[in-house]
């Protein structure tokens, strides 16, 4: 049982007022442990909303420092944070918004070698990364560890997301393997409208809160795609694939893999 103080009852009153959430739902949020991978464009809104919502323990992993070109969309960081650790900068904002939230910082990048050990302490994982090697690594590690996660990807004016829950379709059911190196541009190469990161990140934060409170239907076995130019949103039903190399009947991927990153990308990190 979570023992709410008067201050907390007031802080979370707009959640508690919701019939679908209530004190019980807020208690689930307060007991939740979420790992956010990447404190950037997607991670910023995710971390801010999860902190405000009162997620009990937020893990933030990012080995990068804030660059001036990040501030157009990475709204958790400010001008004075330039050259400062993204993970520490994000932690300070969380503490300022909600001192009840426990924050664990990893000034590192997720790799095959540390992924399982970091993920094991959390109930839910949010992908806020910007490259395919890590997106596939997050998928494989979460499938193996039996952890749910929210996938997010953005490019130019578009975004896509789905929520993995063990037993349902995973990222590799949809996208079998990383695309050939250099074939898909990332934000650093192709650009992105800053607010798109906010649109997608807030969807991921909402999915996280829905997961813990059990409210509504998750984007499980559904890929949500939107184009902000036309504001068209599409929800495509996807099915678990028998031949999926990680969650299929005869998985061929038994070890985590560090795929090679496009060289031009590495220079920008």
């Amino acid at each position: 049982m979570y023992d709410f103080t008067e201050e907390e009852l007031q802080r979370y009153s707009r959640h508690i007022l919701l019939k679908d959430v209530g004190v019980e739902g807020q208690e689930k949020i307060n007991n939740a442990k979420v790992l956010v991978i990447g404190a950037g464009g997607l991670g910023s809104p995710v971390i801010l909303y999860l902190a405000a919502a009162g997620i009990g323990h937020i893990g933030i992993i990012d080995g990068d420092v804030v660059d001036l070109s990040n501030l157009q969309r990475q709204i958790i960081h400010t001008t004075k944070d330039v050259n400062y650790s993204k993970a520490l900068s994000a932690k300070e904002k969380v503490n300022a918004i909600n001192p009840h939230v426990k924050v664990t910082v990893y000034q590192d990048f997720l790799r095959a070698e540390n992924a399982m050990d970091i993920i094991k302490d959390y109930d839910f994982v949010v992908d806020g990364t910007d490259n395919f090697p890590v997106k596939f690594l997050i998928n494989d590690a979460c499938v193996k560890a039996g952890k749910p996660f929210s996938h997010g990807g953005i490019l130019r004016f578009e975004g896509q997301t789905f929520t993995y829950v063990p037993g349902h379709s995973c990222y590799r059911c949809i996208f079998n393997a990383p695309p050939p190196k250099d074939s898909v541009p990332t934000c650093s190469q192709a650009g992105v409208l800053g607010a798109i990161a906010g649109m997608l990140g807030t969807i991921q934060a909402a999915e996280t809160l829905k997961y813990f409170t059990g409210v509504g239907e998750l984007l499980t076995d559904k890929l949500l795609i939107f184009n902000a130019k036309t504001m068209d949103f599409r929800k495509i039903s996807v099915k678990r694939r028998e031949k999926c190399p990680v969650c299929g009947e005869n998985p061929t991927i038994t070890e985590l893999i560090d795929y090679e990153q496009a060289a031009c990308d590495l220079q920008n990190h």
Partner: protein
Amino acid sequence: MAKIIVNDNSQEVTLPLTVNGLISLNGVEQPDMVSVQINGEFIERENFSTTEIKDGDTVDFLYFMGGGR
């Protein structure tokens, strides 16, 4: 002429047509980047050149999106 639906839009195509044919017909710039679902079932990439489109099929092209930071 066969009527199919591609990404929610109806399209008239001439059969026979393979998945690869439909990909190039739709001007997909980077065929390596697209996952294809027909009537809710993913088509394995190695079968793109042999899988035939049928009248009334619902086809989804799903693209990789790798950004986030």
